[in-house]
């Protein structure tokens, strides 16, 4: 990407950052389950790469327009495709003429190319989308190797089947990937953690049990609570935030008032031209962008204003198509949030404004005899004063399966991310596109995990997750608050961004980690009620849950979430020292409103014989009614490190009670 790595502190200019310490991820192999790759993209350039790691057992498979020998190299070292489960489900051949795709690892929709480039793309200078977002494109781990497992197929929607997904897990584990990046989601209601219909949780469990971190998307069904996906505690789940970059697009109204919208408009200026709002004759319903009709309004050569409550990018293209077909020359879409942009193709301007500015434009239209507007090409604004927000679309916690397991774990940039694409994707330019989604925040974290794996090869997936969660930014890199986009804006909380915004340089030196292994996951499976025989089969050894069911609150997570506190509860955590051998940490508590929190012991002492210490935390509610979640934090600090766990507590005097709490 051309901005997010600078924004996150991995600038190429500073030799002391994690990227340099980790030798840009050299030697690490990242596996992606996605829509394939466009191997000719410069981001897969392997110039200067050494031999493929000898431990690598994978390979590339040939297929339609994909020659394994010619298309793979020392950067793209694995490329396989799995479609049998999908074909068997459909019981008919896949017509790739009707729905363009390649029966090979080749990527037609551009998604897999985009995702893998974000995590591990090689340097490509002077990259932009038609001049917008100009910069040096690169992944986090520019020297990491890429293995693509194509499981998604373009059958209208781009979808994959669990059977193929599990095959990809099976092969990737065998091939020897160091981590797996899954920009994949399913649908609420979710399946349980040991239900293979989910496909991801079970495959991920076996990967994590073998030391392979699995990073997965939070999902795009936000901003509503309990919409989070990929909720298993062994998965690192990633929400999407904005970066400090926007694409302001000047709208000059005929009354000389200027309004700053946002767009990816790289065409020529649209000089003063007619501006219309296609109101119905009854004036009952506003003109929704998703269902524009122009029966009573001539839009030929004009710019159209419309309003919508739908946040998706598709609304932009739908409105743009309707206006273009009716002879219009541009569309202004009023909606909130207003930073979900998209190119509308052929340099057709589709400019987004919020409702406040949209209403100003509407009032101008209604008051002017011949309203006009001029649309200037979009500019790129980087740095201050662009604020960081958790994206509207990013799925929110708490988990609907296990609300005591905080999800998402972390947030990373996932809005208007510029990266490589497939030339077959209609909204690309010069091999690059700008896309938004938790699909694109996920590989940001995957790239960072690759760097962490390079410097700490022995850290478990849980230790890596802990390092990322406990060191995250609670405010943006400039120290400004991070907001949460939604129906009403608020400051972001742990159900929006988990530990916060990923801070790669801090994650490299967490001080302490909340480590977990298979026994901790067994603890979780027992706590949520799976039976002994199922757990025994899942973990491959005879397992008996304790007679007294273990508490899910004691799962050794780097976060504390208590969804049903009625009076008082005590929970236990264990931290492992990964910093200086001799060190002392003191606790610092920010209690949630109405909750008393105490920690014993208040000081943790580590030395050459003690590198793990347990502590207990007592929570007592003073609330007398069922409340919503309140948030706080527990920080262990030695003066240099700050190991912060987000705390979320909901008082439930009446248990299992729905009252919008």
């Amino acid at each position, binding site marked *: 990407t051309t901005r997010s790595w600078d924004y996150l502190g991995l600038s190429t200019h500073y030799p002391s950052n994690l990227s340099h310490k980790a030798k840009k991820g050299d030697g690490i192999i990242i596996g992606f389950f996605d829509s394939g790759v466009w191997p000719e993209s410069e981001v897969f350039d392997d110039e200067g790469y050494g031999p493929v790691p000898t431990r690598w057992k994978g390979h590339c498979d040939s297929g339609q327009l994909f020659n394994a020998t010619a298309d793979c190299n020392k950067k793209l070292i694995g490329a396989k495709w799995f479609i*049998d489960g999908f074909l068997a489900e459909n019981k008919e051949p896949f017509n790739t003429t009707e729905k363009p795709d390649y029966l090979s690892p080749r990527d037609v929709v551009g998604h897999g190319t985009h995702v893998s480039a974000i995590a591990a793309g090689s340097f490509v200078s002077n990259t932009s989308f038609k001049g917008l977002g100009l910069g040096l494109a690169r992944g986090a781990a520019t020297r990491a190797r890429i293995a693509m497992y194509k499981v998604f197929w373009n059958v209208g929607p781009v979808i994959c089947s669990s059977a193929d997904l599990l*095959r990809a897990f*099976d092969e990737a584990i065998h091939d020897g990937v160091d981590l797996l990046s899954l920009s994949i989601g399913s649908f609420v209601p979710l399946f349980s953690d*040991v239900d293979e*219909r989910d496909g991801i949780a079970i495959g991920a469990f076996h990967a994590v049990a073998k030391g392979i971190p699995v990073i997965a998307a939070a999902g795009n069904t936000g901003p509503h609570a309990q919409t989070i996906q990929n909720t298993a505690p062994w998965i690192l789940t990633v929400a999407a935030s904005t970066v400090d970059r926007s694409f302001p697009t000047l709208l000059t109204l005929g009354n000389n008032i200027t309004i700053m919208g946002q767009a990816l408009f790289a065409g020529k200026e649209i000089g003063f031209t007619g501006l219309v709002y296609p109101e119905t004759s009854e004036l009952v319903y506003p003109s929704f962008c998703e269902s524009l009709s122009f029966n009573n309004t001539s839009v030929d050569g004009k710019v159209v204003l419309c309003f919508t409550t739908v946040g998706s990018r598709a609304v932009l293209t739908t409105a743009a198509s309707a206006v273009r077909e009716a002879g219009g020359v541009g569309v202004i879409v009023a909606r909130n949030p207003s930073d979900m942009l998209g190119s509308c193709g052929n340099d057709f301007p589709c400019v987004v404004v919020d409702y406040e500015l949209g209403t100003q434009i509407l009032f101008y239209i209604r008051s002017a005899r011949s309203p006009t507007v001029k649309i200037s090409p979009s500019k790129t604004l980087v740095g201050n004063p662009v604020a960081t927000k958790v994206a509207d679309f990013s799925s929110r916690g708490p988990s609907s399966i296990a609300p005591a397991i905080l999800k998402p774990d972390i947030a990373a940039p996932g809005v208007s991310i510029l990266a490589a694409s497939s030339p077959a994707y209609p909204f690309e330019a010069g091999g690059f596109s700008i896309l938004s989604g938790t699909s694109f925040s996920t590989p940001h974290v995957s790239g960072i995990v690759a760097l962490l794996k390079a410097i700490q090869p022995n850290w478990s997936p849980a230790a890596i997750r802990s390092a990322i969660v406990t060191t995250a930014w609670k405010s943006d890199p400039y120290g400004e608050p991070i907001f949460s986009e939604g129906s009403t804006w608020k400051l972001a909380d742990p159900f929006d961004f988990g530990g916060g915004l990923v801070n790669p340089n801090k994650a490299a030196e967490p001080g302490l980690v909340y480590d977990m292994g298979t026994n901790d996951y067994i603890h979780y499976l027992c706590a949520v009620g799976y039976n002994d025989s199922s757990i025994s089969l899942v*973990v*491959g050894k005879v397992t008996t849950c304790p007679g007294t069911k273990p508490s899910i609150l004691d799962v050794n997570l780097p976060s504390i979430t208590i969804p049903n506190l009625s009076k008082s509860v005590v929970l236990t955590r264990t931290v492992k020292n990964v910093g200086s051998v001799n060190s002392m940490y003191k606790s610092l508590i920010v209690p949630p409103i109405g909750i008393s929190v105490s920690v014993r012991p208040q000081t943790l002492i580590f030395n050459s014989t003690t590198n793990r210490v347990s502590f207990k935390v007592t929570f007592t509610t003073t609330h007398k009614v069922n409340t919503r979640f309140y948030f706080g934090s527990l920080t262990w600090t030695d003066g240099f490190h700050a190991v912060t766990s987000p705390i979320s507590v909901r008082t439930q005097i009446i248990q299992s009670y729905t009252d919008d709490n």
Partner: protein
Amino acid sequence: DNTRKVHIVYMGEKQHSNLKLITDSHIDMLASVVGSKEAAVKSMIYSYQHGFSGFAAMLSKDQAKMIAELPGVVHVTRNQLHSLQ
């Protein structure tokens, strides 16, 4: 045969590392339900044998139920679709 759908038979952590034995055991298990080894090979879509044990196969509802009751099987469920995000 429209009554048969893709099912996933999940058998948890693999019990040994001999890949041929794992696949053979999957085919034998499937054959015990679909009637013959030939029918089992035809029904089998994938044999999962590296990261974990299990297989994907075309099964009717009744066949899926029968397999779910066999020892060593954690779950048998229908295939599911996923989307990019």
